[in-house]
């Protein structure tokens, strides 16, 4: 979705350029807050955190250069770091596909609905707004605790206290918020021209065939957008893990997601250098995952409008 935007902003032919140069002033006035923010709050901090990742820094004493020490420690000497990596990956792999599958199924169900569509759409969307709050995270902790609803229904005991299950409770809170991708799916489904389905029906395609040959390819850009967005967000999960893991990623570090450990190292233990190194690894991993998704997208994402925009 982003790559298609860039060509439209490409500069136009050069003859008029001198005229434009005179008129650039106002543009920079409009842009000035953004430029200031981009430099002072994005680019500069990125550079600084890269530098800090090679230092030992506790906020009070000046940073001390330690070379690759933080990275070496992270990768070879810190089992909790690896614990946070595997916890986060497990969480992403469980939560994102479940959430998107549910979003797609509900969007398909609502698509052909004549009455009540707007109502269901809003109602299913509501948890996406509420779910990020501390209030709901506390509800989750209580519902999945010993003696909570899940314990009473299934007799499994509280998931929150079982290392094997606590992370699933966190993931289910994310799945609960399937409304945002669902709304995007639904909008995508409604943009598929009806003629395509009619033509397919004329050619003798049944419902299932129509789904595979019309819906899936036409919806693939939207699916791709949702996949990238939700994956990036899932890597940064914090609040529900904080609440469900009682602020420490418990029990037995089973909900110690990456950002929670980063918070613990940087802001609780005051190892800002170490936390900066963690932040850079996170940045690189998210960048790499996004790049891989973009690369694979060439083989499965179908862009109908080549050139007409």
């Amino acid at each position, binding site marked *: 979705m982003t790559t298609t935007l860039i060509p439209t902003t*490409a500069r136009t032919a050069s003859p008029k350029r001198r005229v434009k140069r005179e008129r650039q002033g106002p543009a920079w006035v*409009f842009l000035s807050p953004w430029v200031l923010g981009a430099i002072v709050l*994005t680019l500069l901090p990125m550079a600084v955190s890269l530098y800090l990742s090679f230092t030992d820094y506790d*906020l009070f004493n000046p940073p001390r250069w330690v070379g690759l020490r933080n990275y070496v420690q992270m990768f070879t000497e810190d089992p909790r770091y690896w614990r946070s990596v595997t916890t986060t990956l497990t969480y992403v792999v469980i939560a994102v596909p479940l959430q998107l599958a549910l979003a797609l199924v509900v969007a398909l169900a609502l698509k052909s609905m004549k009455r009540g569509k707007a109502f269901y759409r809003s109602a299913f969307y509501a948890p996406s707004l509420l779910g990020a*709050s501390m209030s709901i995270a506390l509800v989750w902790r*209580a519902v999945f605790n010993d003696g909570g609803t899940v314990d009473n229904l299934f007799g499994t005991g509280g998931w929150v206290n079982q290392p094997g299950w606590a992370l699933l409770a966190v993931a289910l809170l994310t799945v609960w918020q399937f409304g945002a991708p669902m709304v995007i799916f639904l909008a995508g489904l409604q943009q598929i021209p009806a003629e395509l389905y009619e033509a397919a029906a004329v050619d003798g395609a049944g419902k299932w065939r129509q789904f595979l040959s019309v819906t899936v390819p036409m919806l693939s850009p939207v699916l791709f957008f949702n996949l990238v967005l939700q994956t990036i967000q899932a890597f940064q999960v914090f609040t529900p893990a904080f609440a469900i893991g009682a602020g420490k990623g418990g029990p037995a570090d089973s909900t110690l997601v990456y950002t929670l450990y980063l918070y613990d190292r940087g802001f609780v233990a005051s190892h800002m250098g170490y936390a900066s190194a963690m932040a850079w690894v996170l940045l690189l991993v998210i960048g790499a995952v996004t790049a891989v998704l973009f690369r694979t997208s060439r083989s499965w994402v179908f862009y109908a409008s080549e050139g007409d925009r």
Partner: protein
Amino acid sequence: MTATAVTRKPVRWGRVALHVGCLAALLVMLYPLAWLLATSLKPADEVIASLDLLPRHLEWSNYSTALDGVNDVSIWRLLSNSLLIAGGAVLGNVISCSLAAYAFARLRFRFRGPLFAFMIATIMLPHHAVLIPQYIIFNQLGLVNTYWPLILPKFLATEAFFVFLIVQFMRGLPRELEEAARIDGCGPFRSFFSIVLPLTRPALITTAIFTFIWTWNDFFTQLIYLFDPDKFTLTLALRQFVDASSSSAFGPMFAMSVIALLPIVLFFLAFQRFLVEGMASSGLKG
């Protein structure tokens, strides 16, 4: 009634099943909210002893306990702190993002293409990559434990998602009005304030509502920047309950949770169209 039923197609069971399925799903979805509301009204002994969703006896005193707040900070203080931060963020985002969006959507300047690409890239940038140095900068400025680190970045258009949202909206506006105005000698500033901004209202409202809700729900940033119980927001006050193991405080705790959710629910009910459409369009355009 029966006569028309005969001439109509037979009951479409597929459609009925669809509605039944959707309603069932909705019940499961809304259960946590119902649980929250019910628990906020339960007396302490019922919270653990009773498995019923509905309280047998309504314990309104949970709410009066919640109104007392935590750590001797009243809930009104917490509420106004939350409102101040969310309000500041809304103001900042609406002003700075619409200014930047206008430049990207309508004005010409050098490096517009690369800068736009950079702006889009920052949407995907994980917040944590810049968090620590930002914290250090604000710490050096002596602004930790104030609201500035929470509000100031919004006035510098750091939430690129909204710049993008407004750019997309502005690109969809007809250019004729602005061109006519330019012929009449109207410069870009006047054109922005008198023509483009009023037409962009729906996108600005979407920006404002999302900013409000996201800031209201935000926990991480508030957690690292605010220490004084006096400066706490509702979210941070609720945080105090996270480590509490006893369920005796359940009633008041969830009463406070309800109060903390209330503004979001009200915003949602009032502006659901903007929210749903805003979310829908974010994935399609481009």
